């Protein structure tokens, strides 16, 4: 930890990863809600040839210039996907996979072409494949911050429009909102988030940075605002945590470790989030089952008593055991009901409903009739 506060490079890298996580968390929220998770994957793969072409055209390795190229190429991919799906019977998923892999192939051809050409200045271009977080310098972090800030400001400015677009596209259309323009804008922002991340986690794992924080945040809340802020924090946390964790042991690649941190947060959220989480669902279901089981015993006692003149007529456990062959279960339910004061045990060992038990039975009968 001490090393962390003293090491200038490390601080830069952690800052970069944090910004990346935050920005992709915010934009990922919209991607996940609009069910476009795999589009993020396609865009990040499709950004690859843009880097190669930009390098061939400009000979520059300045991240900002390469990012513009990557952005244009990623954005072009979404346009081609739209073209294919609107003008042929090819389905969306097929178009997505096709464009993703063909663009990536073009990128690979360009990259090998550059590597074999006499221009020796190409070193480091392929770090975009897996990202090379250690190579981040202050200048890169400033670029990332500026681009990320622009993206976040745009999200804030068009907050209610984007919200409507995410939840009710038809309604947005009927309000004469420029739906296609907004689509375009949001896609462009996602492309920005992706190219910010390319340098850090690379094209293949970037989609996880878009999807994971948003999926995790979704479990904790039903409100878009809260979800966005949560996704931002979770993304930032996995970015920073991933970097710090990856330097703690030898041979831990940073990009994948960042992704694993994000996945761990998803895992925790899916398990433990209140109301939605798996653990919560399980507890709710078992409480429900327990309640139903003891109510069933209570109602059986009620049904038996109804054949006598008093509803509080006691019955021996033997009579009930005809219905519940497993002694343990029956005893447990009876003692639980007794604890709640709904049944009582007579001196001869017979069980009878108490007045409040009878009352509850009447209510349950009414509920079941309705």
């Amino acid at each position, binding site marked *: 930890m001490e090393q962390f506060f003293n090491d200038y490079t490390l601080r830069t890298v952690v800052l970069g990863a944090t910004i990346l996580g935050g920005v992709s968390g915010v934009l990922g929220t919209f991607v*996940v809600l609009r*069910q*476009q*998770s*795999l589009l993020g*994957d396609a865009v990040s793969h499709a950004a690859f040839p843009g880097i190669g072409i930009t390098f061939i055209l400009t000979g520059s390795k300045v991240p900002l210039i390469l990012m513009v190229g990557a952005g244009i190429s990623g954005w072009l991919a979404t346009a081609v996907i739209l073209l*294919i799906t609107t*003008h*042929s*019977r*090819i*389905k969306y*998923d*097929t*178009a*997505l*996979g*096709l464009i*993703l*892999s*063909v*663009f*990536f*192939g*073009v*990128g*690979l*051809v*360009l*990259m*090998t*072409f550059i590597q*074999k050409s006499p221009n020796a200045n190409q070193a480091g271009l*392929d770090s975009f*494949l*897996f990202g090379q977080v250690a190579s981040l310098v202050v200048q890169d972090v400033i670029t990332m911050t500026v681009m990320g800030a622009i993206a976040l400001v745009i999200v804030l400015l068009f907050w209610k429009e984007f919200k409507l677009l995410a939840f009710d596209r038809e309604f947005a259309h009927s309000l004469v909102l420029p739906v296609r323009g907004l689509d375009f804008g949001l896609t462009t922002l996602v492309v920005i988030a992706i190219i910010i991340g390319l340098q850090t986690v690379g094209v*293949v*794992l970037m989609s*996880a940075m878009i*999807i*994971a924080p*948003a*999926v995790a945040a*979704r*479990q904790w809340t039903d409100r878009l605002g809260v979800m966005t802020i949560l996704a931002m924090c979770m993304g930032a946390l996995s970015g920073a945590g991933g970097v710090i964790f990856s330097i703690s042991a030898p*041979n*831990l*690649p940073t*990009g*994948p*470790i960042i*992704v*694993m941190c994000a*996945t761990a947060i*998803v895992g925790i959220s*899916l398990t433990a989030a209140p109301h*939605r*989480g*798996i653990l919560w*669902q399980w507890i709710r279901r078992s409480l429900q089952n327990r309640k139903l089981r003891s109510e069933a015993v209570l109602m059986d006692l009620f049904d038996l008593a109804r054949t006598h003149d008093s509803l509080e007529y006691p019955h021996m456990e033997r009579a009930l055991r005809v219905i519940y062959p497993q002694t343990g279960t029956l005893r447990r339910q009876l003692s639980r009901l007794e604890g709640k004061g709904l049944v009582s045990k007579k001196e001869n060992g017979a069980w009878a409903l108490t007045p409040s038990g009878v009352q509850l039975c009447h209510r349950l009968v009414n509920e079941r009739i309705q």
Partner: protein
Amino acid sequence: MSQFQLEIQLVASVVAAVCALPGAFLILRKMAMMSDAISHAILPGIVIAFFLTESLSSPLLIMGGALTGLLTVALVEWLRKTNLVREDAAIGLVFSTLFAIGIIMIAQFARDVHLDTDAVLLGELAFVPFDRLIIAGRDIGPQALYSSGSVGLLCAGFITLFYKELKLSTFDSALATTLGFIPGVLHYLLMGFVSMTAVAAFDAVGSVLVIALMIGPPASAYLLTNRLSRMLIYSVLLAIIAAITGYWLAYLLNASIAGCMAVMVGVQFGILFCIAPQQGLLSTRARQRNQRWQFAIKMLVIHLMQHENTPEAVQECRIDHLQDHLEWEEAFAEGVISRAASQKLLRTVGETLELTPSGRQLAQEAIVHI
């Protein structure tokens, strides 16, 4: 052409053809993105199997990959069933996590094992002929040829054997279930083949370009035919064409062979997207134009028939009146008249139009249809 070149082309063709077979079913079942997920997610399985066998083309590797592939499918299914994550996000989460695990494993074992991340992601066909299969001291060709070839034979056998079951469960899975075909089992079998194919192909073309070979040729074939059997045959043929042309493109550019194969897959799709006989952009456009003329001609003959033998006929059937009455541009009106005249539906008598018997018949039929 040296034996070396011949062998690369042979392996490329076999790999491409083998990928195309399960790919055709993937795109018809709208699960094209599962190829993306599986081809990335098999990485940890490959790494473990590679760690055990030290070979990139042993049957154990294929089994390990196939198991990881099935694990991916099962995980995606399970996540989707919790209702906490939508399917697209589930796919994105599962495969990027497994891929990240794979990369971390490679980085950990890097000193002991010769397997680097570039090789996994990109593959290198040019190295394939160096890995020979030697049986009883005799060199019988590149090992990749046999591993992908045997997966291909298995897959072709599976498709031939279960052709009608696969066909039915692909196009009408509800009916398949009612007939007792257990589409679930078929689904997992198919996914198993997708995984095995991905493993067999990845050391040649890498995990991203496997997607291009799985989706591209079947998508192109889908534009050419409506019959499943023909689609399968065309997919295989197109895949082989892409492989061989891709090889020579790579030879010309001195670039990655796999990348060039993906580029050719894209070029192939682009060409067919424009000129495919039924589904292509050009023929769709031509059909739409033709329909526009046909509709206009019908309008014209109906209009003429309505006013035939009435006092207004002199006024209504004049050529220049059409422009007012049907709101046609002058050039369009002339086009319609000349087309109708050449089909012998009407003739011009001075300034007015007169229906021929066949024109009258068309008008009567058209009225019934409209």
